[in-house]
């Protein structure tokens, strides 16, 4: 019974963390002389108050979920991918290029090819840090951050030069944007709102990632390497290969997120010179969503909707009570800090449970890591 309560508490930790962050937010609102209830009411209304509002929430949640799925894979493999922003950009650039080049092909085919191109672009941008980590021992946090910066400059260069909208190229203003995609190449809308097929693709992929991680050899090995690389090596797993794969797949999902932004929302790429100008920081917020979903692909779905809602609701809050939506960025940061900080509670309980189990059968407490790896291999 106590154990059940304990695991329930574990599952609720992120929710508690969010409420804690919102409580801090309420204090900040009081300092800004804004009634927190009014502010949060506006936030709720902006995110869920109407069909359109909810559709916007889902539109915002889509890239978060896609990035988050990639994060589930890489973090499970103990690879920290901070490169979602850059991977989104490169995926989007490649997909846009396909969409602008093959204008003679039927719509469904171009959409399919573009999504694949996005997947591929992100995979390359994630795969490079993967190879650097696996074979050259370069810290992936640094290399992915560098790859983000490189991707931004690449985008700026392409959108100002080779890929610029031909009509802009003739103008003096030279707005750095690509031409608009043909109407036939847009991701179909799912309802008379801005909700597009990308959302459905993301949900299907969430199930696919669940199957990948827990029902396939590849997934078992990625997780085994994440839990204990040394034990995995002794068990005969080629650790380096799975490090590369974890980052490559992670990048691929971010790349797809970028592609769906172009084909489902903006229908062209435009840059203000920064990464967040295109991604809306989804490459970072996707990490938040995945952590919140406890790195479980299915739980990342509601987590993404929650953070999508916060982002959309923040705009309404800004209009109604004049609180800048930046507040939500700050609160997202606090959620991350609270969630990773609360991990210690979960670990402590786990250790206590193991210690009790050890006393009961009078054998030394099991080594959790090795055991899990063995199980993983047995399952494989």
């Amino acid at each position, binding site marked *: 019974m106590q154990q059940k309560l304990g695991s329930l508490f574990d599952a609720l930790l992120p929710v508690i963390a969010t409420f804690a962050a919102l409580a801090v937010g309420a204090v900040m609102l009081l300092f800004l002389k804004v009634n927190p209830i009014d502010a949060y009411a506006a936030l709720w209304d902006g995110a869920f108050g109407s069909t359109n509002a909810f559709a916007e929430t889902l539109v915002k949640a889509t890239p978060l979920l896609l990035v988050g799925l990639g994060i589930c894979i890489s973090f499970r493999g103990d690879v920290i991918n901070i490169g979602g922003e850059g991977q989104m950009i490169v995926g989007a650039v490649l997909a846009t290029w396909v969409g602008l080049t093959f204008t003679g092909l039927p719509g469904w085919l171009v959409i399919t090819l573009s999504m694949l191109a996005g997947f591929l672009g992100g995979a390359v941008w994630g795969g490079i840090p993967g190879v650097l980590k696996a074979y050259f021992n370069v810290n992936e946090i640094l290399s992915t951050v560098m790859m983000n*910066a490189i991707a931004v400059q*690449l985008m700026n260069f392409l959108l100002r030069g080779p890929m610029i909208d031909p009509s802009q190229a003739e103008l003096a203003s030279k707005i750095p944007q690509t031409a608009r995609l043909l109407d036939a190449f847009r991701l179909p809308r799912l309802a008379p709102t801005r909700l597009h097929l990308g959302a459905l693709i993301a949900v299907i992929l969430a199930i696919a990632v669940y199957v990948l991680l827990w029902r396939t050899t590849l997934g078992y090995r990625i997780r085994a390497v994440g839990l204990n690389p040394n034990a995995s090596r002794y068990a005969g797993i080629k650790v380096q290969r799975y490090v590369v794969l974890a980052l490559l797949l992670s990048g691929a999902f971010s790349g797809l997120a970028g592609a769906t932004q172009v084909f489902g929302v903006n229908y062209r790429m435009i840059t203000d010179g920064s990464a967040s100008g295109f991604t809306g920081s989804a490459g970072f917020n996707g*990490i938040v969503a995945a952590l919140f979903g406890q790195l479980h692909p299915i739980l990342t779905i509601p987590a993404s909707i929650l953070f999508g809602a916060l982002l959309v609701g923040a705009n309404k809050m800004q209009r109604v009570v004049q609180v800048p939506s930046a507040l939500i960025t700050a609160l997202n940061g606090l959620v991350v800090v609270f969630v990773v900080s609360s991990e*210690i509670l979960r670990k402590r309980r786990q250790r206590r449970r193991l210690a009790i189990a050890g006393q009961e059968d009078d054998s030394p407490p099991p080594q959790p890591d090795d055991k899990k790896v063995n199980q993983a291999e047995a399952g494989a």
Partner: protein
Amino acid sequence: MISELFSVTVLIGILASGIRLATPYLYAAIGETFGQKSGVLNLGVEGQMLLGAFAAFYVALTTGNLWLGVLTAMIVGALMGLAMAYVTVNLHAQQGISGIGFYLFGLGMSDLLFQKMLGTVETVKGFPKIYIPGLSDIPGIGEIFFSQNILVYLAYALVPIGWFVLNKTTLGLKIRSVGENPDAADSLGVSVARIRYFTIILGGTLSGVAGASMSIALLNVFQQNMTSGLGFIAVALVYFGAWRPVGVLGGALLFSLINSLQLWIQVLGIPIPSDIAVMMPYVLTILVLVATVSRVRAPSALTKPFEREN
């Protein structure tokens, strides 16, 4: 037009602004070096810089006292560092991810405060240039090295100070031992937690100054997300410089000189895509990491929380 780049005046201009632009990198990266030497990776530098930049700017604007601005930035950075230290040392939180959390917090918070307390982009009269008597009159050299503002000089002074403290003092020895072998340090009576608190708070303080150097000494404005990734580069510079202040200086100058070159290319209207130029230091950093990582070892306990065995 390219030949314009090589005129003496322009070259001096490029070098002088290159020296100046290395300032925020130096403060942030030397602070981060201390943290990493003790085994803590602080990825929240960017957030600390943004809050420091805003705090310094706001105080300088409202009180007219630049030093009070720097002091406020230091306090804000130190408080962020304190929070980071509690989360990573006491709660054993994953350092990379909690750093991202602190980054997002600083990004949002500085933007929020900016919009609520200022609303529009204003300028402040920043630290004036200090001409070092005699030296600043040397043609060329004087303008490049001896006609900078006080925060620039102090940033460069940090390099030898940082080296000295890390390598020649007991404190430095403790910091290094905590980062290499916390168990051994602990058994010798060094408090791992206390040392790490010290280095993380120091890092936060210096990140705050890094932000202040941008908002009241180099650019003299505050804007949303004005650091635009500079704090993350500062973290990378620590790896780039192989955890040595002198190496960090080299990396900082590389980034700042290329940045300065690119700015001048734009000013002169030379038709070279500046995006590609801006990209180069990042590519180079990755290449340097590849080339050096196998030879230079990171502090053994980097990113590993310390827990006393029973």
